[in-house]
């Protein structure tokens, strides 16, 4: 019998297995690459989220500094930690002293998204060394870290460049120098918080809104009328140096400018600010390189409004003394009962308007004299309230001014013993000979621009033929300080003192010389506020030789 033998080799099976193997390798390769991309995506997300965490922690520190509230913070003596501090033995009650730091570990935040579901933060605040302290008060360094887990395997990105940029800690925390159990992204920022001023956040030059410098040689700087090192020609009264005058040779760089809403602010093409510029809102336009100090944001001062006087009936007059010729003389009477012109019983005048114009129309505020003709100090404290009631005043170029000093020789002169306060409602134009303050101390002349209850604004022009030495506290006034007096102004015109305005414009090569002696007299009070003077992210990895 012959039997046919038919071959049954497994060629089909081999082909199928080979095909499956190839397809599996293709799929595995694709999945590997895809998983790497997914891993890189989550790592990138964690890296970016960690910066958000660091910024949030820094904001908490700024708030703690601004409010001096340290709930949940702890004080530790020693150098700054490299990892999250844990010493809770001393709750913080105040800003840290040199050699200490305060730290806070905010509660972790829950996240939803592609990467981690948790954001951890911690922040430290320590004072910079004593060499940092300036006249504006102590600055503080804020170091804030945001740490976000990076889900997925502890595997570097398939792109080396990403690893250089985003330093994901896979097995080792580069900042703390310790091993970790799961991958995380950690970013650290360092901020210098600089005090806007030691008291109340009010600077020497404050504008609630737009601030502009228009002239090429406009200038803002500072001096100190009570410090012989930073002023000239002062005198000693009862052992105290007072009345020092500004001179460029003793200039200081604390002509700090604060702007609450910087919209439209512009330094234009050349004005110099010898001091810091602090603002909130859009960036300042113009030649900001001429700011010699720090430019920082935000500026968060509380600027109090100015109220109209509330004088008791019978304590004031409704008209000025009768003029002798064109001169009105105001002086107290030491022989009256009680004496007038004293600090406790100042000479008060409530006027609907005060307009001086034409030749030689002047007001002289002077001291009474004794029998020998010697001036008696302490009797020329004067307060003048211009109400603008009934649209009283003078119209100049279509604008009604309740107070104005215009004309060739019109002006107000106060002698070296006088202390004068003006309360103004309505527009004011102080030009002509302006207000001459013979004490050379800005604290002796205050111009208060009363804040209207309806939120409206008024205008205030300060120009004149001579320097203005005084303080303008007019947060509702659009104020112009002009180097071009309306009648032959001289250059450089100087405004010496301090100014608080709604908008502030320095024009015509005018200068503002802030008198640092005014600091304790300026309104505001309360706690110092802080603004960012420097921001830096430490993205270095010393172990890998990477710095920037």
């Amino acid at each position: 019998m012959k039997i046919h033998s038919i071959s049954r080799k497994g060629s089909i099976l081999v082909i199928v297995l080979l095909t499956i193997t190839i397809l599996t390798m293709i799929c595995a390769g694709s999945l590997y690459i895809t998983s790497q991309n997914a891993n890189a995506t989550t790592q990138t997300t964690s890296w970016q989220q960690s910066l958000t965490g660091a910024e949030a922690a820094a904001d908490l520190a700024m708030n703690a500094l601004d409010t001096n509230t340290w709930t949940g913070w702890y004080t530790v003596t020693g150098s700054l930690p490299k990892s999250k501090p844990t010493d809770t033995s001393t709750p913080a009650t105040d800003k840290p002293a040199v050699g200490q730091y305060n730290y806070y570990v905010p509660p972790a935040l829950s996240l939803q998204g592609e990467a981690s579901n948790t954001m951890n933060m911690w922040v430290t605040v320590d004072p910079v060394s004593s060499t940092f302290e300036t006249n504006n008060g102590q600055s503080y360094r804020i170091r804030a870290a945001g740490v976000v887990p990076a889900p997925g395997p502890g595997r570097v990105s398939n792109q080396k460049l990403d690893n250089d940029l985003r330093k994901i800690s896979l097995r080792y925390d580069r900042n703390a120098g310790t091993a970790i159990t799961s991958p995380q992204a950690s970013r650290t920022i360092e901020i210098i918080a600089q005090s806007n001023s030691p008291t109340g956040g009010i600077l020497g030059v404050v504008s609630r809104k737009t601030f502009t410098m228009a002239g090429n040689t406009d200038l803002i700087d500072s001096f100190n009328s009570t410090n012989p090192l930073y002023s000239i020609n002062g005198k000693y009264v009862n052992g105290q140096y007072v009345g020092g005058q500004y001179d460029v040779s003793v200039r200081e760089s604390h002509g700090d400018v604060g702007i609450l809403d910087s919209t439209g602010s512009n330094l234009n093409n050349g004005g110099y600010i010898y001091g810091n510029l602090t603002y909130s809102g859009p960036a300042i336009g113009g030649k900001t390189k001429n700011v010699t100090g720090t430019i920082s944001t935000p500026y968060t001062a509380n600027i109090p409004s100015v109220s109209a006087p509330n004088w008791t009936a019978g304590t004031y007059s409704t008209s000025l003394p009768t003029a002798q010729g064109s001169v009105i003389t105001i002086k107290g009477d030491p022989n009256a009962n009680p004496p007038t012109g004293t600090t406790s019983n100042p000479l008060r005048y409530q006027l609907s308007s005060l307009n001086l114009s034409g030749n030689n129309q002047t007001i002289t505020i002077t001291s009474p004299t004794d029998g020998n003709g010697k001036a008696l100090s302490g009797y020329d404290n004067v307060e003048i309230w211009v109400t603008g009631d009934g649209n009283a005043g003078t119209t100049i170029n279509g604008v009604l001014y309740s107070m104005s000093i215009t004309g060739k020789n019109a002006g107000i002169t106060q002698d070296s013993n006088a202390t004068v306060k003006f309360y103004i409602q309505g527009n004011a134009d102080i030009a002509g000979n302006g207000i001459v303050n013979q004490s050379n101390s800005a604290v002796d002349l205050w111009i208060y621009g009363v804040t209207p209850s309806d939120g409206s604004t008024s205008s205030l022009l300060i120009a004149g033929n001579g320097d203005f030495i005084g303080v303008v506290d007019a947060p509702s006034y659009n104020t112009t300080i002009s180097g071009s007096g309306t009648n032959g102004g001289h250059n450089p015109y100087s405004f010496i003192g301090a100014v608080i305005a709604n908008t502030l414009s320095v024009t015509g090569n005018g200068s503002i010389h802030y008198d640092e002696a005014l600091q304790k007299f300026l309104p505001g009070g309360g706690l110092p506020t802080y603004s960012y003077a420097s921001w830096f992210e430490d993205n270095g990895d010393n172990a890998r030789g990477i710095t920037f």
Partner: protein
Amino acid sequence: MKLLRNNAQTGLTLAELMVATACSSLMLTAVISAGVALQRSFAAVEGYSLAEGDQLRVQDYIAMDCRRAVSATRDNGTWTYASNTWSWVSDPNGAAALILTVPNYYDANGSAVDPSYNANGAIQYGAGTTTISYYKSGSNFMRQIGFDPTKATAIATNVASFTVTDQDLTSRVTCSITFSPRFVYLPGPGPINGTTVFSNTFLRNAVARQ
């Protein structure tokens, strides 16, 4: 002897064989088409992923450096070697560059330094500053620390153009980088020209002083 016949080994008729072949061909064609489509899709996704990675990296680098810069300038020119030193030489026909000045936050050992005030009362880190520049070189996008372009790093590839807007370099830096398409198989409207990403970063360190 009678020839025995194994009736169990019956073959297929021609018609059956043709139907089976047709079915197999259809299935194989479908599988191959699906595979090609999947590979093409994968290539597109991979290209997209790489492009996204490059774009994110460039934006993150520029944003990080701008945030910590104290000044920024834009210029066209080249890094030129002369008198044993590298320096930037302006040239209208040169590459557009963003040049940032960053505080010297690190000392020679790579450790962070403490800040201090300069003579004008401004915050400074260490002595001097460090220059970081960005520019396009060929189709690479370069990030250079210091003045030596031979040490620059290509942080992205496939870059078609780079511009820095002069809008407001005293406060913020606005850049745009256009990437050439990596995956251009688009049977419909044709290949796209590229992808442009924009970076607009506020200079936090006290505004640039140009």
